[in-house]
């Protein structure tokens, strides 16, 4: 494979091995996400919900995924007195990333939208395969945060959003169990 220089693309010289970066991206605050998801809402009112054990069991049965917190973070989107929908802020742990996301659900139980709020890849840089570890042993880590701070854009093997998809399914179950009849 030959290496061609292209006017559109230049290698940045020598960025050292990043062995344990804490990749982090913050996309939206909760408030920004609420307005992005249901822009026509005039207000978002926090709804304190405590799920009882029977409801937790039912959510798991409906969605196939356990609802870990019994006190989900839920807001009712209002226009005047009318409920336009619900915004639920939830977290999932992916393969090795910690993701906060918001899902908007209509009063009749349809997904209106999903926005990622923040993304924490706590162990993403760990070299898990010992063969690779050996190969790069001895390459110094000069500035572990240089890449994190300066280069948020990554080209690489696709990360699956499967856990978010499962999470949204679980929040739909939560809606049907705890919110659908709340008016």
């Amino acid at each position, binding site marked *: 494979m*030959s290496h061609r220089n292209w006017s559109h693309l*230049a290698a940045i010289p020598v960025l050292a091995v990043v062995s344990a970066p804490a990749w982090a991206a913050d996309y939206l605050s909760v408030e920004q996400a609420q307005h992005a998801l249901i822009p026509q809402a005039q207000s978002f009112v926090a709804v304190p919900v405590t799920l009882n054990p029977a409801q937790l069991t039912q959510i798991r049965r409906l969605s196939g995924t356990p609802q870990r917190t019994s006190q989900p973070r839920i807001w009712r989107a209002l226009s005047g007195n009318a409920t336009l929908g619900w915004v639920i802020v939830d977290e999932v742990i992916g393969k090795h990333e910690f993701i906060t996301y918001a899902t908007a659900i209509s009063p009749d139980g349809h997904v209106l939208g999903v926005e990622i709020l923040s993304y924490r890849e706590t162990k993403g840089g760990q070299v898990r395969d010992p063969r690779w570890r050996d190969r790069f042993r001895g390459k110094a880590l000069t500035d572990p945060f240089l890449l994190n701070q300066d280069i948020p854009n990554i*080209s690489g093997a696709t990360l699956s*959003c499967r856990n978010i998809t499962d999470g949204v399914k679980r929040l739909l179950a939560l809606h049907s169990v705890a919110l659908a009849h709340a008016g």
Partner: protein
Amino acid sequence: MITRCRPLLGTFVEITVPVGQEAAADRSFAAVEHVHRAMSFHEGGSDLARLRAATPGEAIEVDAETVRVLRLALDLFRATDGLFDVTTGRQLVRAGFLPRAGIARLAAFPGTSADIEVVDDHHIRLARRVLIDLGGIAKGHAVDRAIEALTDAGVAEGLVNAGGDLRVFGDRDWPVALRDADDVVRHAVQARNCAMASSANLMNRRRFRGQEQSPHIGRGGRPVLTTGRVSVVAPRCILADAMTKVAMADPELAGQVMATYGGYLLASPSNGNCH
């Protein structure tokens, strides 16, 4: 600059635009959602689901974008002597990389890319039943459509990244870090008005009937098993995305084909990667 992120196309799609252009980012996401709906392998209402159900010989109406993607897929199928193939769905379902999606008998889908005929801008005809998976090309197309939505809205500069397949535009350099096959970032490049896609499968292996499998299918239907990462730079992301699959199996061929499309393979200073 602001960046928004949504779960689409089975991955995380990031769109970066100047502050104040959030509405354009919304339209850009809508373009990705359109591709997601039309070209999802999983979703029942997608064009792929309807092509699965199609009777051979019947012209099936599909989204114009699906036709565009299949046209390029067939061009690349021919240019790579069959190495780029969107009909490896059978193998990928069998190995567990794709969901069963309600398919009762995989053996009922014997067709290859040679059995796909583009009738016109809205119709596809299949000579035999074919299990089409656009997982190796639709993300790139979605990125291109998202970029078009931004430029159509008058946005001066931006970036769209669909799980590592990305494209940038505007009068500036965009730093892009490259994630190696072992999930570690060692290198970065500056990109300007170009698309880039990377593939690896070291962290995405399964076993089927005692054999190690990857989502990349090479010559003779054998899974490509490499410890390396390939990155392809191209004027359009659909090309970069598709050609990483070829580069995984045959980097030399990928380099030759990319040259005809104005792109190239990015040599990685860390390898030995591409076998």
